[in-house]
C-alpha cells in the first residue's frame, strides 16, 4: 500500500495523522511501532524519523516526520479528496497558518503535558506530578480564554469551516475530556460547543473504531 503510518495507537501525534487520512477518505496501512522495546530509536524507524519519535509516514517514495507537516502534506496533495482541510484564498490560508502555530506552540504544550501526566503515567506505573498538572492547567486556561474570544467571532478556530487547525486539536481535546481538565472546557461556552462539535465528527469515530 502506498500510504503507511508508523506509529503508536495511543499517541496523539499518530492519531492526528490518522484523522487527516480519515477525513480525506484515504486508504493506508498502520504499522505499529513497539515503543516498549525501543523500536522507535532503532533502524528502520530512525531513518524515517531521525528524532526517534512517532509517527513516521510514507507515501510511495516520500518519507516524512512531524505530524503537522504530514497532515499539511495530506491536505495539499489530496486537496480534491474528502473534507477540504485548507483553503485557496491566500488571506484565509494566512489566518489558518496563524492558528496552526497557536495549536502547535501554545495549546499543545500544556495539553500534551496534562495528557501525559494524568493518562499516560499511571499506565506506565508512574506517579502523576500534581504540581505539574496544576501549572499546565493554568497555562491551558489562559489559552482557552483566547480561544473563547476567538470562537465567539468565528465558528471554527481557523475560520468559518472545519480545517486542519481544528483537526490538530482533536487527539488532545479527546484526552482532556476524559479527565478533570474537562471542567476548563465546560466553563467556556464557545470552547465547549466547539470541542463537542469536533469530537463528534464521523472521521474521528472511524479512527477510534479502527484503533480499538
Amino acid at each position, binding site marked *: 500500500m502506498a500510504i503507511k503510518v508508523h506509529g503508536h495507537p495511543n499517541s496523539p501525534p499518530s492519531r492526528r495523522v490518522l484523522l487527516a487520512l480519515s477525513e480525506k477518505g484515504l486508504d493506508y496501512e498502520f504499522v505499529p511501532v513497539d515503543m516498549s522495546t525501543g523500536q522507535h530509536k532503532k533502524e528502520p524507524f530512525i531513518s524515517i524519523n*531521525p*528524532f526517534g519519535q512517532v509517527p513516521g509516514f510514507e507515501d510511495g517514495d*516520500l518519507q*516524512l*516526520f*512531524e*505530524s*503537522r*507537516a*504530514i497532515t*499539511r*502534506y495530506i491536505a*495539499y*496533495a489530496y486537496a480534491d479528496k474528502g473534507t477540504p482541510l485548507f483553503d485557496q484564498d*491566500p*488571506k484565509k*490560508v*494566512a*489566518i489558518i*497558518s*496563524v492558528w*496552526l*502555530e*497557536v495549536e*502547535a*506552540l*501554545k495549546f499543545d504544550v500544556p495539553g500534551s503535558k496534562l495528557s501525559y501526566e494524568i493518562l499516560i503515567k499511571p499506565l506506565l506505573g508512574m506517579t502523576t506530578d500534581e504540581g505539574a498538572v496544576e501549572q499546565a492547567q493554568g497555562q491551558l486556561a489562559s489559552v482557552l480564554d*483566547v480561544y473563547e*474570544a*476567538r470562537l465567539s467571532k468565528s465558528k471554527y478556530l481557523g475560520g468559518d469551516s472545519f480545517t486542519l487547525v481544528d483537526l490538530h486539536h482533536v487527539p488532545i481535546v479527546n484526552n482532556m475530556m476524559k479527565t478533570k481538565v474537562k471542567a476548563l472546557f465546560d466553563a467556556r461556552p464557545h470552547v465547549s460547543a466547539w470541542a463537542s462539535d469536533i469530537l463528534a465528527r464521523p472521521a474521528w469515530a472511524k479512527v477510534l473504531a479502527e484503533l480499538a
Partner: protein
Amino acid sequence: MAAPAPVKVYGPPLSTAVARVLATLLEKNVQFQLLPVNMAKGEHKKPEYLKIQPFGQVPAFEDESINLFESRAISKYVCDKYANQGNKGLFGTNPLEKASIDQWLEAEGQNFNPPSSVLVFQLAFAPRMKIKQDENMIKLNEAKLAKVLDVYERRLGESRYLAGDEFTLADLSHLPNSQYLVNGTNVAELFTSRKNVERWWDEISSRESWKEVVEMQRSPSPRNA
C-alpha cells in the same frame, strides 16, 4: 505603477520571533516598517495591542487589510504572497520541497525551539534583566539541545541545509535563537563542536539578510527598510 505599501512589523528586533520575521522580509526584498512596542512599559499587554495579538506577544504584522501573528505563520505568508521576488526558493517551489521544509520547520518549532529558547532566556536575557539564573533549567535544556543537535549533525552530513541543498525557511527559523547562543554564551560549544552543524551555522549566519538583522539588533533606534 505605485509600489505596494510597506508591511508593518510590531516589536523590537532583539526579540527572537521578531528577528525571524525580519530575516524573512529581507530575504524576500519586501519593504517594511518596523514599529516599536514598549515592552518595558507593558504596551504589549494593553487592550490596543491585544487587538492585534491576543496573546500579548511580539511580533504582530499587518499587510494591507490582513493582521497576523506567530512569526512562523507570518514568514510563510510573506513567502507565499511575495513568491516571485527575492529568494524564490525560500519556501520551496513545488509540493515535495514544501513538505520537506514544513517537516524541518516543525522540527525547529517542536524540538529545537523549546530548549534553545530556555537557554536564550537564561543565558542572554536573565543577566540583563537582573533575574537569577536557574542552574537546573540550564543543565536540563543543554542536554536536550545537545540531543537535537546530534540529529542535526547527522542530517547535515547528508544534506547541505536542513530541508535539502538550498537555504530555506527551515534554516532561517533557527537563526534568531542560535545567534544568541553562539555569540556570547558558553553553550556556543554545542554548535562549534559538531563539524556539520558548525559548517551550517557559518553558512546561514553569513547571509546578507541575517547580517542586516543583527545590525538592527545592535542599533539603538528602530529602522525601516
